[in-house]
């Protein structure tokens, strides 16, 4: 009932949280919701029809991310992919130690922190952009390698809060040199819309994607697992996805995932340019308000994420005023109750807590227009002025 009540005039700048499904993906999944309802594992002709859809989707995804179809696993999303990669790789070796950066998404960070008390997890720092501190990472890997440990390294391709791009080729060279036996995983969830995935895939062992971040449905994801890299499955059962992820496949979701990823990749170069221009207009407008600092500048961040810290406002209050004015944006991550938590990413980057209080993330995507950006600057300007006039002396 509430769905129909959503105001279609909303200015939606929260694409990093989720981006609307691409119409072609919605269309592609329709036949598999009602008509082709067969279980793809079945042995009848009806099942074969569903099976074929999955096989074709797998080929399409493999082509985009630059791997063999057999290396593509369809699962339930980015968090599942991250958990599987880390726990699955750690369980395969008695001597494994998971290592990640302090600015990873919680889907990675909480896994590593969970392993830490047993001596199976370590967190290394980041630079002022939120990218892993390569010197510290190299040092830890050399030590672990020297102790006969097998590092399971997880470094995100693009930071979900501040948008910074990690030079993964550089990280991979360092990891291979410091610990040749290491497993290298990347959470590439925020990279899919903006970066060519093939070069990233080429330098890692495991990669995770989340469909709803690139115009596919929620609850669907993709994991690339390089042939020869051993990952213990988290979910056992009917042996689907070559025993790597059991459970009846979400046929409609998989088809939509592939359709969205293919469409995203086809438009990536032109879209990136268009969104980069909008981002620059947006950031320019915000800097014009005064007392605004861009957290990671264009060039080092993806076009889709503009993160700023605004002096003299508390983002919890700011988000209320933005919401009231019809602008959907976000700050840091929210906890289970919905309360805003201080950003672990900004803390890891060394941003003081008072500055981080004014953090605002505006994320752009395939439906973002110049009108959205102009409206956002207007709305934010009004809200910031109001809050600053109410700031306690």
């Amino acid at each position, binding site marked *: 009932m*509430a769905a129909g009540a959503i105001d279609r005039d909303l200015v939606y700048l929260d694409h990093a949280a989720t981006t609307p499904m691409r119409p072609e993906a919605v269309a592609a999944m329709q036949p598999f919701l009602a008509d082709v309802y067969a279980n793809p594992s079945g042995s009848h002709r009806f099942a074969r029809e569903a099976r074929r859809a999955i096989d074709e989707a797998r080929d399409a995804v493999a082509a985009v991310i630059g791997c063999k179809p057999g290396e593509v696993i369809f699962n339930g999303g980015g968090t599942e992919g991250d958990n599987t990669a880390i726990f699955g790789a750690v369980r395969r070796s008695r001597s494994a130690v998971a290592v990640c950066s302090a600015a990873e998404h919680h889907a990675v960070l909480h896994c590593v922190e969970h392993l830490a008390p047993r001596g199976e997890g370590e967190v290394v720092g980041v630079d002022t952009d939120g990218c892993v501190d390569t010197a510290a990472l190299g040092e830890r890997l050399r030590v672990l390698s020297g102790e006969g440990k097998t590092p399971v390294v997880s470094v995100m391709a693009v930071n979900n809060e501040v948008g910074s791009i990690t030079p993964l080729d550089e990280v991979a060279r360092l990891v291979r040199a410091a610990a040749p036996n290491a497993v290298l995983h990347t959470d590439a969830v925020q990279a899919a819309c903006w970066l060519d995935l093939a070069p990233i895939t080429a330098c890692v062992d495991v990669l995770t994607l989340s469909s709803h971040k690139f115009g596919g449905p929620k609850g669907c994801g993709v994991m690339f697992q390089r042939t020869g890299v051993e990952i213990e499955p988290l979910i056992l059962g009917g042996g689907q996805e070559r025993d790597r992820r059991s459970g009846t496949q979400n046929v409609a979701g998989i088809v939509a995932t592939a359709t969205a990823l293919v469409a995203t990749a086809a438009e990536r170069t032109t879209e990136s340019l268009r969104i980069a221009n909008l981002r620059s207009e947006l950031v320019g407008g915000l800097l014009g308000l005064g007392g605004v600092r861009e957290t990671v500048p264009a060039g080092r961040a993806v076009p889709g994420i503009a993160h700023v810290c605004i002096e003299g406002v*508390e983002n*919890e*209050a700011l988000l*209320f*005023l933005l919401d*009231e004015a019809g602008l959907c944006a976000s700050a840091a991550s*929210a*906890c*289970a*109750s*919905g*309360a*805003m*938590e201080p950003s672990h990413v900004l803390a890891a980057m060394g941003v003081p807590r008072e500055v981080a209080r004014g953090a605002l993330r505006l994320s752009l995507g395939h439906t973002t227009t110049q009108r959205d950006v102009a409206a956002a600057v207007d709305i934010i300007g009004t809200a910031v002025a*109001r*809050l600053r006039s*109410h700031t*306690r002396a």
Partner: protein
Amino acid sequence: MKVLVAMSGGVDSSVAAALMKREGHHVVGVTMRLWGGESDTGCCSVSDVDDARRVAQQLDIDHLVFNFSDDFQEKVVDPYVHAHATGVTPNPCIECNRSLKFSRLTERADALGFDAVVTGHHARLVRNANGDMRVHRGGDAAKDQSYVVHMLTGRELERTLFPVGHMTKAEVRALAAELGLRTASKPDSQDVCFIPTTGGRETFLGKRIPFHVGRVVDTEGHDVGHVDAVELVTIGQRRGIGLYKTEAKRFVVDVDTESRTVVVGTENDLQRTGLALHSMVWASGAAESGRFRVQCSAHGTSLPCTVEVVDADRVQVTLDAPHRRIAPGQSAVLYDESDAYVVAGGLVSAASAWPASVGATA
């Protein structure tokens, strides 16, 4: 009016929100996340936030969560811990109202363009003949919460609403049931929200301050026992005071954390008529001596007394009849002689009387 309703996920604030909506106001609900640590009392828990959100959905009002856990730690939890370390018994619920609900939240409500903050407290706001708003006791004598909101004055009172203040708890529950609110039969919250019921105060404080063994002496100064943690002893306490031999009814009549000494005595030794209060807040803004009633706990009865103003911050209270000594740090609230409304409030001092010289020099 555009109003912000503080919704805890309990029945009173649920009904408060429903009443405001029924009166046609633009209502937004907010649940404050205050305590970031572990707790099993249910306060600030995800399920309480869920209840608040579901009630808001049912009423078709927006619901927000504000994270004030930093402020709560600084203004409520840290002072609570510090107080115990120095032998003072604080009232964290009052400090929470003072520093969070009616300060942090009202300031934010102001900044966000709300005309008033609404809570589910059982107290009534009534304008007197001079046109000034006063906090009156709630309609349900057994549930009256005027004591915990006594610090509201002047402008804050003009921007605060207690829609269930005139109702009895039974009426609130009946209305919640009639409206089909999921919180209709939810039990009242009890105890201090950040202190787990398992382990309690002792475990909570034990993780934060060092405990010290204390001597237990009688009123003549003779050693009669010892306690493991002088920081956990409260005036008036009868159990767990480590007496060497069982004596008939001994009470803690004094605690000195500095010398780590607990004084025990008979119920008679505990009786006082004097009560020295500091940090006074006056509803009218002006201190006044005279005949009042004083209440020293959330659900205690008020006692008739005479009040003498020492200075803007302090008063000397003399009870008409002796009463058990009140622990330092507790809030004492003065009501008018007819016991109808709040006149002032302050904190109980360690001494029963201000030194006579104080008034003269101040």
